[in-house]
């Protein structure tokens, strides 16, 4: 039944958020620390566990797939409720801080991406630079 999949997903999210809140209060931060990240890891392990035991028939999967497919519309709904007026009104200081932080970090992605990739790079001639 589809609800089985949705229930597994819900349980993973709840446990993940619980861990995130616990971690947040443990280190004295008023925020959820990585809750969704933990939930995702739980879901990955749970689905692998169930798949190996043949407990993941198609209808159960559908219960998760629907929510993962609805993801983009959810992001659109999220965008539609951002405080865009405040962002624009923030003036040049806010705009410049946001733009520069984005550009600098974005430009460094290929550099960071290479870290820990040495094994694959060792055999490639591109490494000479």
């Amino acid at each position, binding site marked *: 039944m589809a609800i089985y999949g949705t229930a597994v997903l819900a349980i993973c999210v709840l446990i993940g958020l619980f861990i995130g809140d616990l971690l947040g209060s443990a280190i004295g931060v008023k925020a959820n620390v990585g809750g969704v990240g933990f939930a*995702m890891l739980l879901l990955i392990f749970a689905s692998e566990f169930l798949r190996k035991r043949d407990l993941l028939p198609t209808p159960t999967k559908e219960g998760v797939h629907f929510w993962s497919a609805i993801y*983009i*519309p959810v*992001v659109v709904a999220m965008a539609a*409720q951002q405080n865009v*007026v405040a*962002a624009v009104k923030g003036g040049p200081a806010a705009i410049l801080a946001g733009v520069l*932080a984005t550009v600098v970090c974005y430009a*460094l992605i290929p550099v960071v991406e290479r870290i820990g990739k040495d094994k694959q790079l060792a055999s490639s001639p591109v490494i000479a630079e």
Partner: protein
Amino acid sequence: MEKIFIDVLSKNGLLTGFAVVGLTMVVSYWISNTLTRGKLHGSAIAIMMGLGLAYVSGLFTGGQKGVADIPLLTGVGFLGGAMIRDFAITATAFGVHFDEIKKAGMSGVVSLLLGVVLSFVVGAGVAAAFGYNDAVSMATIGAGAVTYIVGPVTGAAIGASSDVMALSIAAGLIKAILVMVGSPFFAKAIGLDNPRTAMVFGGMMGTTSGVCGALAAIDPKLVPYGAMTSTFYTGLGCLMGPSVLFLATQALVG
């Protein structure tokens, strides 16, 4: 009759939200296919339309929650709110291979630390350049350049004034919007087409809404990888902002 119709729409807010967002998607994909011949992805257009609608609503209602401040459209706020958002983001992890995550391991961790620190330094530097040169204001605006959640969390912890808090949130919002709309154009240039780079992307940029929106437009298969690292980014920022980063700023400016 009109009153009854509006009553039905506002009483069933979430359903109205599904309908409104669904229509937005139809229009966006139509624009994408006919006007840009698929060059600009439909989801990117939909996100821009969402942001545009939020701006217009903000101007008319004077509220802070975009279209969700319009009584008829509160359901859109629920659909895009924290609960459904976390639920749907987590669902994208279904079918992710754990090996891919392990492969990104070290560069994922480095990207998280470097992303938070770099954004903070750049933000604090810009703040100082604009005359906000006390440690509290610099740290708050710097934290805002990390994400718009880290900004106010940090500001509240170290006692920043409300106009500085507003600036820090604005910086974070600009970043989220820019990542969402701009990244797809440069995805090829930085090789953003595989799970590993997507994880580094999530770790460097951090803003979950920006990262997920961008990856949805680049390749929906990459969403879970970027989402995974970016959810840790805000947590790490909230942890480092009011502590290590603020203390370092204070030590520097005195």
